[in-house]
């Protein structure tokens, strides 16, 4: 059935687009566009230096109800995570992505924090992940799936904590796509996350936290990033 249907649909389309024998040129145009992936207009707000972009990112992310803690270096990350859990009355156990980049933070300095690694379990209250990139334009995180970054960590918990190194920050989505292309292969899942889960389905009044995380917290790490760098 599906083979017949395929031929029938594609046949109908070929008849409809009426390229009149100029098929080679059309194929060339399509191949070239896929190869070159030209950019459209990139909003001017994205074109700033990194320091201004960091400010824009924080402004945009908090405008959509994420919270951001800025810390001066990798050494401060564990305390920032623990503080957030405490302030939000969350359990002190977190599920953390099995990502080597996260190993480089001195978690041992906060002995109250219990860390489990792996994919998310339904009972997890809070998860900790890194981010492939972050887009200042709209305060958006780009999370790429992989063996060290399971997708469920981004969606199952009540609170999702993202440790974001400042050198992961770009202005526009297009810059993040270029970084992703440089890794060689499109990940199975790329999640662009902009604030926590929300709905306005009850009388068109905005409420946070329906199916995905009720809270999204971003720990933005300044300073020298080499201590916490990974190959992405």
């Amino acid at each position, binding site marked *: *059935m*599906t083979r017949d*249907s395929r031929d029938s*649909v*594609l046949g*109908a*389309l*070929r008849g*409809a*687009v009426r390229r009149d024998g100029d098929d080679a040129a*059309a194929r060339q*145009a*399509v191949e070239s566009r*896929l190869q070159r*992936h*030209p*950019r*459209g*207009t990139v*909003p*001017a707000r994205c074109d700033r230096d990194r320091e201004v972009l960091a400010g824009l990112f924080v402004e*945009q992310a908090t405008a*959509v109800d994420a919270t951001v803690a800025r810390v001066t270096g990798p050494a401060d990350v564990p305390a920032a995570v623990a503080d957030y859990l405490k302030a939000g009355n969350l359990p002190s156990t977190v599920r953390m992505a*099995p990502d080597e980049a996260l190993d480089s933070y001195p978690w041992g300095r906060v002995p109250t924090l219990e860390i489990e690694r*792996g994919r998310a379990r339904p009972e997890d209250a809070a998860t900790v992940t890194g981010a492939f990139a972050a887009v200042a334009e709209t305060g*958006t995180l780009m999370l790429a*799936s*992989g*063996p060290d970054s*399971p*997708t*469920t960590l*981004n*969606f199952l918990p009540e609170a999702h904590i993202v440790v974001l190194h400042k050198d992961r920050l770009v202005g526009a*989505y*297009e810059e993040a*796509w270029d970084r992703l292309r440089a890794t060689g292969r*499109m*990940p*199975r*899942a*790329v*999640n*662009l*996350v*902009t*604030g926590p*889960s*929300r*709905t*306005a*389905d*009850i*009388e*068109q009044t905005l*409420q946070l*936290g*329906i*199916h*995905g995380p009720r809270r999204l917290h971003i720990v933005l790490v300044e300073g020298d990033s080499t201590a916490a760098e990974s190959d992405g």
Partner: protein
Amino acid sequence: MSALHPTSRDFKANVRKAMADETLQKGLATAKLGFRNRRAAAVARLPEFDSLRDEARDIKNHVLAHLDLYLEAFEKRVTEQGGHVHWARDAAEARDAVLAICRAAGARTVTKGKSMISEEIALNDFLQDNGIEPVETDLGEYIIQLRHEPPSHIIAPAFHVMKEQVSDIFHATHTQFDPERRLDDARQILDEARAVLRDRFLAADVGITGANFLIAETGSTVIVTNEGNGDLTQTLPRVHVVLASLEKVVPTLEDATTILRVLARSATGQEFSSYTTFSTGPRRGEDLDGPEEFHVVLLDNGRSKMVGTEMQDVLRCIRCGACMNHCPVFGVIGGHAYGWVYPGPIGAVLSPSLIGIGEAGHLPNASTFCGRCEEVCPMRIPLPKLMRHLREREYEARLSPAAVRWGLGAWAFLAKRPALYRLATRIPMRLLGALGRRRGRFGSLPLAGGWTASRDLPAPQGPTFQDLWQRRGGRREASR
């Protein structure tokens, strides 16, 4: 109404019912203002918005001119990543494809993200009839599924339902909880929905989502949501099925990005939706989660027949709902009155093409041609022009009511004979002017009952426009 049994023929009766529905009218009043104000604010924050609209339009036009090639490229990439593409000429083939996948997976329940294609092919009833339980997981869709209703808006499917009604249906359905519990505020309703649906996500064998885009460059499918339900739907079950119509394909990640910049702003007035997810094939070797199977069902259902015709522009639609949010007709009658899956101006041009002029010919007539829909459409679809075109087709097919046809015929006869036209307008205008001189208006008038039933008709104050124009020598008065 259901997708299998449209009620678009009964449009006039549907409209009367909708206008008498106080709950609906309340919902419409809130929706109109909220959507319009939020969109306007978002557009004002992005100076590049209008040039992005032009580019978004051009991207889709380019795709539609090369649709066969981009679909082939998309299919090739999906297959290379270990996914499967299923082509469906019509709704029945698409339903069969989904059922076959579910059967092969031994599925008993499927969770679903929001998908208009699923509504278009009436998938839920079909799965149910075949012993598979479909569970809608978008909160709005879940509510209307429990109420056995179709969506009344593309992006706010349950905006016509009040909080108390949600509380009632939750009490009636979720019998596992204390019947005395209170569900008075939105937070309590959300918490209960989150708990109930979380279990369904974890138990489902297959997850079905729609797609906002298909990307030829990477073989990815894209969903845009705010709740995160689509992501749980497609990440937790063993099998992920994507339902998409042909025209959803775009060339590259950059092209999707350009259109994404206008999508959320036009729809909800957000700069970007909470979750935009690009899915590329099934789980990979070392992955700890994700579906083991990845299927894309590509639906035609009449669209290939629109390519290359004057209706092709409709295929640029990205289902943001801006046209209905700004439509004075939708603003009074809501979505159900349109009688099929797609309401508002986009429904008025899409439905006749998909289910036939005979079924949905009324819809393009429900417009004042005020042009607001075209003004706000992020893809610059000329909706009034397309409605006008469909009206012509309806007239040509002799489907319009006799009175309309006779009236239009009579008007055309006069309009083509200027001397006769002037005479035929001058005499009644003088007569009406004389009759109405004392009150200046008519409370009732023969042949104008449709007008005077709800308001007065002003009496003509003097000569006809044409007479005035002639008296002035056919020139404007010098201004100031």
